[in-house]
């Protein structure tokens, strides 16, 4: 799926994965697969409610069906199908479906957002061991961001000094972006995603 994202993007289509797992489970699993940059939605509370609204929740099993729903930019359902929980989806076929709907239902009237990038001076300060730092690094991997400088303040005194000089504090994780510190793991992860894989 990740490999075919450019084809979906060219068909003006945003791919959204959905299951009943938590966002943390999503993030770690996605990295294990080699990184997933498109949103994986957590249909977690109330469990399966969104899937149920699309007829894709298997209430007896407590999981979502392996179903696919295509909604055009005007909000109309153009395709809904399932291969069953144990089935296999044909991703190339889905890309062709999106291309066909894009040409028949009409190309969206507004442009999708384009990634701004982080800028060459961005630095991510992390510490170890630290669950928050780990969460941020998982996000960096899911976004396939290989150019970002990552410095470990627990193992490198010069990194700690640089963090203190840049922010006036030793708090990590900290993303220094455009010369300004971004603190809190959730806020850092959101900021990275908005710069590298914006949605909307």
């Amino acid at each position, binding site marked *: 799926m990740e490999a075919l994202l450019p084809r979906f993007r060219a068909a003006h289509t945003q791919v959204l994965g959905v299951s009943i797992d938590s966002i943390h489970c999503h993030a770690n699993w996605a990295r294990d697969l080699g990184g997933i940059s498109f*949103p994986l939605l*957590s249909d977690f509370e109330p469990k399966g409610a969104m899937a149920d609204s699309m007829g894709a929740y298997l209430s007896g099993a407590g999981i979502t069906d392996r179903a696919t729903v295509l909604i055009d930019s005007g909000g109309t359902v153009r*395709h809904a199908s399932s291969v069953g929980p144990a089935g296999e989806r044909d991703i190339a076929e889905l890309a062709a479906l999106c291309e066909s709907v894009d040409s028949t239902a009409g190309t969206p009237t507004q442009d999708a957002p384009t990634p701004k990038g982080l800028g060459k001076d961005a630095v991510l300060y992390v510490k170890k061991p630290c669950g928050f730092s780990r969460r941020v690094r998982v996000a960096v991997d899911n976004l396939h961001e290989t150019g970002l400088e990552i410095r470990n303040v627990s193992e490198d005194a010069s990194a700690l000094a640089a963090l203190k000089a840049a922010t006036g504090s030793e708090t990590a994780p900290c993303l220094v972006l455009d010369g300004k510190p971004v603190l809190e793991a959730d806020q850092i992860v959101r900021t990275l995603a908005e710069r590298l894989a914006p949605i909307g």
Partner: protein
Amino acid sequence: MIDEGRTAPTFALNDQFSRKVSLEDFRDRQHVLLVFYPLDWTPT
């Protein structure tokens, strides 16, 4: 499964990057392909 031709019910859920993602975010901008799967750590 939901019927084709219907207006999709709206949703707003969190993603793996702690963002609230809503169907409305994509209105007039992009089509949306919802790829449901049973559980993480199983094939997509």
